[in-house]
């Protein structure tokens, strides 16, 4: 499942970040910001216009990601 499809408030963990193209700097930045295997992640809020961007909680940090950015991240939903 993609992070961009995760329902608001549903707990999940990151699987991995996929490069949208070769040497994708946005994907690398996401990994540096902690989007790595096993990190708990949650959609906290959704932007008011066109449901974009998404506010993602990862650890104690909140990041605003556009849908295209969140689409790079695959997540697993776990009964937590």
């Amino acid at each position: 499942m993609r992070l961009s499809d995760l329902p608001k408030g549903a707990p999940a963990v990151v699987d991995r970040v996929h490069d949208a193209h070769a040497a994708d700097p946005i994907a690398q930045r996401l990994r540096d910001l902690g989007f790595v295997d096993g990190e708990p992640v949650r959609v906290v809020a959704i932007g008011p216009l066109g449901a974009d961007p998404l506010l993602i909680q990862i650890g104690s940090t909140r990041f605003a990601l556009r849908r295209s950015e969140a689409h790079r991240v695959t997540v697993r939903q776990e009964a937590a």
Partner: protein
Amino acid sequence: MSASTLRIALVGNPNCGKTALFNQLTGGRQKVANYAGVTIERKEGRFMAPSGRLLQILDLPGTYSFDANSPDEQITRDVLEGNYPGEAAPDLIVCVADATNLRLHLRFVLEVKRLGRPVVLALNMMDAAQRRGIEIDVPELQRRLGLPVVETVAVKRGGALALIERVDGEVPVTAPAMADDPASRADLHAQVREILSATVTMPRQTAVMDDALDRWALHPVFGLAILAVVMFLVFQAVYAAGKPMSDLIGTGFGWLGGHVATLLPAGPLQSLVVNGLFGGLGTVLGFLPVILVLFFFILVLEESGYLPRAAFLLDRLMMSVGLTGRSFIPLLSSFACAIPGIMGTRSIQDPRDRLATILVAPLMTCSARLPVYALLIGAFIPTHRVLGMFNLQGLVLFALYVAGILGAMAVGWVIKHIRRDKSEHALLMELPSYRMPKPRDVAIGLYERGGIFLKRLTGVILALTVLMWFISTFPSPPAGATGPAINYSFAGYIGRGLQYIFAPIGFNWQISLALIPAFAARETAVAALATVYLVGGEASGGLSHALTGQISLASALSLLVWFAYAPQCMSTLAIIRRETNSWRNVAISFGYMFGMAYAASFLVYQLASWLA
């Protein structure tokens, strides 16, 4: 080594409190705020440690990693390694981390450690961590990291004592440098997780307060409503609170000028002092309270952490006009002044988004336009109540701000559509915790801004005002001249020359002339008009009285619109040149704004004349 200077560099993730710590250490007054990317240039300060050793502190912009893909982060890395031209490697790196957000910040600490240079870790915001019940086993953290760790509270007096003591002591031993490759970078996260599980216990991942506030502030409907109300109230308050104070200062200066006039013999000197200094400068000085009220609100918003929320809410809208949510903060600072706004665009990573933001930033209504707006609105717009609660003057002021914003959106949209590179733009923006604004920081911010305003007033504005007085007074009219003396002065000739260009948009020669000094500093337009009308002997009942007698409502509206869009001021164009390193962008800015201002003023003038 006690006599030598110790060079210390402060590094860390964005918004972890490096600059607050820097100010605490050096007694500096650098700008702090609650969002990522406040510090955009290296800042240096020094202080004497208790041991008598001189410590030189370098404050660097925040960075998430040393990814070579990002030029800014490469620079920070080069500075730390001593590879940056003209910059010796620091003797000690103080890595600052937010104690409430170690999962993110420790990764960077490990990255810094791998440089193989002496590092001390400052766990900042320990007060917030304690409030949230976060427990950190500092000795264990120190052991596992292999780095000295000190606790700091950068925003509290004496909150950096432990850090001072530590950096004043022995320079810690250095771990060996390690290679930077993708495999080991991924490994850093695993290390962080291991260290955290052994040293930190958190009752919950986020602050209760943040969750509660964000539920409203980021709500799809209420969030936008709150944003609109906040912005509207700020601009109403600027008028309601600032204007009475301004009037008081204006009246005071008029009275003072009248008294000084009786002390001086009639002649050029009396005219310079009364018309130029008291009339011109006094009028501009009167707008200081209005500007301070505006800055007060901007500072409070900056400190609170609300601004990145607004950026979140508006990202999609801004994207549709070729900008990004990240443009919001630089554009909001441009309401104070376009210069810090344009410099603040450095926090926008995407070069295309950054250029678009730079090009539209001067369209945001800067505080230097306020005196001009306030003067014209005060003179021409009645003080009606609309719907029983809104002041019509305040509404017109609000409309002018909106006109600037709509103009910026139109220009952004055009840029988006003529831009060739359509590849993806990233947002990736961190939202900080909310924080109560510190009265001291707000006071320092107001003091600094007030100082800058007074410096401009006594520098460039004073010089231009004296110059305006000079060209309005000399040469004296020839013997037997019939018209007013000012018609024979340099000012009269220049103004009438310019009027060929500006007559179609309804400017008389006095206004056309005032546009020249306004190009150096917009507020000067007010001082220049005051001087020209006073010297011309047409402003006996005050400047706004003279204006209503001399120009039509259509001209006044046209002038307001002109100031909303016109290419000003020189310093803004100079900063565009510096930040984009291109004269072409300066020419584009000047050209499109001139065209836009002329077209808009022309429409407004013709329409208003026709309606009247």
